[in-house]
């Protein structure tokens, strides 16, 4: 799907300065997200694979569904029979002269009975169908969510959260809608055929005449539907474009005001809003044009009944009650036809949605506990890589034959330029991925021989970007160890120097962190994530040091907290700060996935290798060094 409109923009400088000098050219400006919507909204109307997978989820509810179908059929039957009762009452109790009050009361009694049945069936139908659809929706979402908890990180790495969310929400709703409507569609179908059958059996000739309008309506709908759908989709896209632009105006207001973009943006937004207006007006035309068509056809059918039926009544070939019943039925023709044609779009949408949902639930779990995986209670904290080769894309290893040992209690700093394999190395310790070749050992055991849960207990991780949840401060610190007491939490916070600022928060430890701690500074978030790792009290610590600079006061606190955190643990640190690197017991230098140097800071500087050259270049972090400088350093012509 292409973006709805690209009018006022010349996307990039490549086309920029070519514009004429005279009149003011269109600005190089857009509002709203420029990312195209990728996902298909409609699929095939029927996809056996999707249906099959869908049925698996329906299995637990099959009795309820059977009940629902029965209820739908009963409901339809009662609806169908009401005009017949009226007809019987008219012809047998009220027809000329034959006024029979007893008989009338009998028919009214039957009527009431049918109405009661209708009520029961209706109740049962709505209850079973809607409730099942509701349950199914929650089941599907949970299945997907639970699966996402265990699929390999390599899947999560390449899939955006936004996309997963749209599957967990939009796609699931599409399936719910499908389920709800499809059972009612059965009812509609039965009703349609029922009306045809009843009408024809009441009087074949009159029935045939009256029904002659039905194919006409079907024809009109078939022509109308694809056109209308296009208009509806255009309206939907225009809406989301407008809302996207509004969102940008809300989130980027600071930049907009600072850079004085109000006027330009407003004009662009106006264009988008106008497109939206026109798209909706067009869609409305499509919706409303059906009304006179349907009314004309209904009117024709009624006229046919009046003229043909009336004259048949006059010549005594038709009971007057039948004519009345016909007039009732005519009013009911069109509803089922309308909803049945809409059903087609719903099915298409559901199939596309189902495809995407089951794609997620079918993602293979690559990292699984072995059947005989151990769950060791305590380990000694040693970490060892034995000839490890690993990568994310087949044929492109990011680690080549890496071997090293970290003794219990030792702190080892991993350094190296961006893309050297530091993050992959730490991820392998926790077995986020499986190695291609070689072995990773934690506490002397191959990580594949123990449960993932035990790895989680023995290894604590601190990520570069401190990720907090929108929960209380206490819950965030306790996250790694749910059973920790308030005292444990406070002790950890005190140890890393977070206690004081936490107490200054409005509700102290019970303060809710809005939007993942946006109300805290970066340094404070880091301290909380340190406290979280401390509460975990694991033998092994894997830490990815933050690169962003914070002010010197906070920096000092963080260094102090870090020292406290490292105490008495085996630590593998992706280090960026010189202070941290120099404080490590040992440094491992990685480049292009290979270990190229190893040793203490002074020794490495003295050795005059890559580390020494990079060190002398005096970058705050090795990640920031431009590629050309690294290339120079590697060739040995680094800064002097």
């Amino acid at each position, binding site marked *: 799907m292409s973006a709805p409109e690209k009018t006022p923009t010349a996307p990039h400088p490549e086309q920029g300065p070519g514009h004429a000098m005279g009149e003011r050219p269109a600005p190089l400006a857009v509002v709203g997200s420029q990312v195209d919507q990728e996902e298909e909204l409609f699929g095939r109307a029927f996809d056996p694979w999707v249906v099959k997978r869908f049925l698996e989820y329906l299995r637990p509810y099959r009795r309820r569904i059977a009940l629902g179908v029965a209820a739908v059929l009963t409901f339809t039957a009662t609806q169908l029979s009401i005009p017949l009762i009226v007809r019987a009452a008219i012809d047998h*109790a009220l027809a000329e002269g034959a006024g029979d009050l007893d008989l009338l009361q009998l*028919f009214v009694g039957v009527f009431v009975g049918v109405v009661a049945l209708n009520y029961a069936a209706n*109740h049962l139908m709505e209850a079973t169908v809607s409730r099942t659809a509701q349950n199914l929706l929650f089941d599907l979402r949970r299945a997907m969510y639970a699966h996402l908890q265990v699929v390999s990180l390599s899947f999560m790495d390449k899939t955006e959260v936004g996309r997963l*969310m749209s599957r967990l929400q939009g796609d699931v709703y599409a399936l719910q809608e499908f389920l709800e409507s499809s059972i009612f569609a059965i009812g509609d179908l039965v009703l349609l055929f029922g009306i045809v059958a009843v009408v024809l059996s009441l009087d074949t000739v009159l029935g045939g005449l009256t029904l002659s309008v039905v194919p006409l309506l079907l024809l009109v709908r078939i022509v109308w539907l694809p056109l209308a759908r296009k208009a509806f989709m255009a309206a939907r896209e225009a809406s989301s474009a407008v809302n996207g632009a509004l969102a940008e105006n809300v989130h980027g207001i600071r930049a907009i005001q600072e850079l*004085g973009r109000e006027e330009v943006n407003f004009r662009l937004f106006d264009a988008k809003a106008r497109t939206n207006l026109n798209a909706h*007006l067009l869609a409305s035309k499509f919706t409303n044009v059906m009304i006179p068509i349907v*009314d004309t056809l209904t009117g024709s059918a009624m006229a046919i009944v009046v003229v043909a039926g009336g004259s048949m009544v006059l010549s005594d070939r038709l009971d007057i009650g039948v004519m009345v019943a016909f007039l009732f039925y005519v009013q009911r023709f069109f509803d089922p036809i309308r909803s049945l044609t809409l059903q087609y779009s719903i099915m298409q949408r559901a199939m596309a949605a189902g495809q995407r949902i089951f794609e997620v639930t079918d993602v293979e779990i690559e990292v699984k506990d072995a059947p005989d995986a151990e769950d060791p209670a305590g380990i000694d904290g040693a970490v060892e890589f034995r000839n490890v080769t690993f990568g994310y894309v087949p044929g492109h290893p990011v680690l080549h034959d890496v071997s090293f040992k970290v003794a219990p209690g030792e702190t080892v700093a991993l350094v190296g330029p961006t893309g050297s394999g530091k993050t992959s190395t730490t991820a392998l310790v926790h077995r986020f991925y499986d190695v291609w070749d070689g072995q990773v050992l934690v506490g002397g055991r191959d990580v594949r021989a123990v449960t993932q849960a035990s790895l989680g207990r023995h290894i604590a991780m601190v990520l570069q970007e401190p990720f907090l949840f929108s929960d209380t401060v206490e819950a965030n610190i306790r996250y790694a160890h749910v059973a920790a007491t308030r005292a444990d939490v406070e002790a950890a916070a005190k140890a890393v120097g977070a206690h004081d600022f936490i107490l200054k928060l409005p509700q102290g430890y019970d303060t809710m962190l809005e939007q993942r701690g946006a109300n805290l500074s970066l340094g404070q978030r880091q301290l909380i994530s340190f406290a979280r790792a401390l509460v975990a009290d694991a033998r092994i610590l894997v830490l990815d040091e933050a690169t*962003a600079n914070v002010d010197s006061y906070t920096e000092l606190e963080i260094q102090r907290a870090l020292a406290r955190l490292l105490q008495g643990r085996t630590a593998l640190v992706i280090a960026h700060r010189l202070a941290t690197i120099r404080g490590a017991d040992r440094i491992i230098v990685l480049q292009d996935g290979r270990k190229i140097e190893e040793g203490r800071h002074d020794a490495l500087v003295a050795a005059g290798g890559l580390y020494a050259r990079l060190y002398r270049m005096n970058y705050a972090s090795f990640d920031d060094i431009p590629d050309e400088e690294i290339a120079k350093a590697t060739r040995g012509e680094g800064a002097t």
Partner: protein
Amino acid sequence: MSGSQQHSRRVDTQVDAQYGIDVSRLDAAVLWRITAMAFRHRLRMAVAVVATLCAGGFQLLVPQYLGRAVDQARGLLAGAAAGEVARSAAEDALLTTALLLLGAAIARGSFTMLQNYQGEAVGQLIGYRLRLDYYRKLQSLSLSWHDRVHTGDLMTRGILDIEGVRLWVDTGVLRSILLTVLIGGGAVVLLRNDPVLALAALSFVPIVGIRASIARLKLRDTWIALQDQMSLLTKVMEENLGGIRVVRAFAAQAHELARYDAISDTALAIASRRVRLFVLSTTQMTFVYFLAMALTLWVGGTKVVAGEVTLGQLAEALAFMLILQMPVRQIGWMINSIARASTCGGRLFNVLDLEPSISDAPDARPLQVTDGVLRFENVGFRYPAAARDDRILEDVSFEARPGKMIGIVGPPGSGKTTIAQLVGRFYDVAEGRITLDGQDIRGVTLKSLRAAVSIVPQEPFLFTASIGHNVAYGDPWAGRTDIEKSAQMAQLHSYIKGLPQAYQTLVGERGVSLSGGQRQRLSIARAVLPDAKVLVFDDSTAAVDAATERRIREALREFTRDRAVIVIAHRLSSLMHADEILFLEGGRIVERGSHDALMQQGGRYAQLYELQARSVAGEGAGEGSR
């Protein structure tokens, strides 16, 4: 914005963060205001109202013709019992009725189409207008207001609330008219035929109407509860997926699933309650309706037997019930739309009626930039709602001249960032004044002021557009060479050139994700592109490493030769070269002077320098060796 009216003008600084959620359900003033907006589209509304009246009128004809047809078919209206002449007269009469019926149906359909279309068109036009007004209002409201409100809340207003207001014309105004015509007209026709039969046929109207209204409002409550729960669930899922590495790192999957289940189960319970409510109300309404039909058949049948009404009149009563069924069920829907329009409109107008606290003075003139000298004269500042002695800045004076650089440093919370905000007049000073080339910045237009000063913020906001668009954000008419030159100054050009689509590469989820340092560099490129006379760097190189920062500084040297530069930073190497350094503490300038002078003084600045030199010893050493 005409300055000084006395009537209750609400300025955005006076409204606290929890503003105006408590709009009562039915606020007549709000509804009136929306209706007035609708009637601004006079012609369309006139057409819509007339069409509604006609559609209702023609629809009322249908049951009457049906009843007449039944009687005609029975030969009652033709008069005599049988006979060829009477028969053909009866057939002619039937034909006439049939044609009238067809005509009424076509007319009803056409007028309904017109009513619906014009109703929706007016709604859409109102929506369009509101959308623009809302957008513009958000642009003009001050940053202090934006800081206090939730972005999600603003989005809800801009999407759902506009929707709620928009639907008012169609579902509120026009449908009420239609329903009044149908029920009123139907009652008149039926009552004229036979009052008792009429009462039987209409007996379901009040019951279903009231039931529908109550159910709607209850459903609405459960709907809101469900929405709350679902947005909680969304938050949990989003954070879990976004923080999946943390979840995995601490093996917290079970804990996370339990958290999810707790919320999900509550949501399911509410959803089920909602289904139950819905089922109960709809089935009951159908039940009452059909019972009324049975009653009509009984009462009417008895009367037919007694000869009080004709069979046709009974059929007419039944046909009336048929056409009234849907509109009566929609009463609940209408009540809901009234409540919704009132709430939504209230929330929307709350924002639209705010006056921005920062806006052009009535006699504001464009800034006349001559030299580009910025002066702070005894500036004091406190946040608008804060207490008197809650000062952020006090008695701050300095002068920034072209070609000169002012450095501002100080502990967190000392008021550094506030100075940057004041230069762009995102807030107004409480005491003293700020001038640019001798003109008080409150006396010039905001547009001209903000074009003359460029602020590089602490946390840059990148737009989901190409890198080129992002660099050119402040000057969308800039040429390609200028854009590239800016990127070069910010030391970003070679990186951008290396991207697959160079300047056309998208920023954000589907495009490249830039590191903190790259984002800041982009923001610098963005700030130097427009030709601003005063540049303020608000801690805008914190994530840029020292060596790159030095190269940026060198690249900017030529550019800043005729511009005033203010650098706010906590890393001293960023500003030690400044012509004058201000050390802020508690909102006051406690030390000022050049680096050397301040070092000699041995005060706060010198202490900070020592502190930093110790923690980044290596960096300092390297600096010297180059």
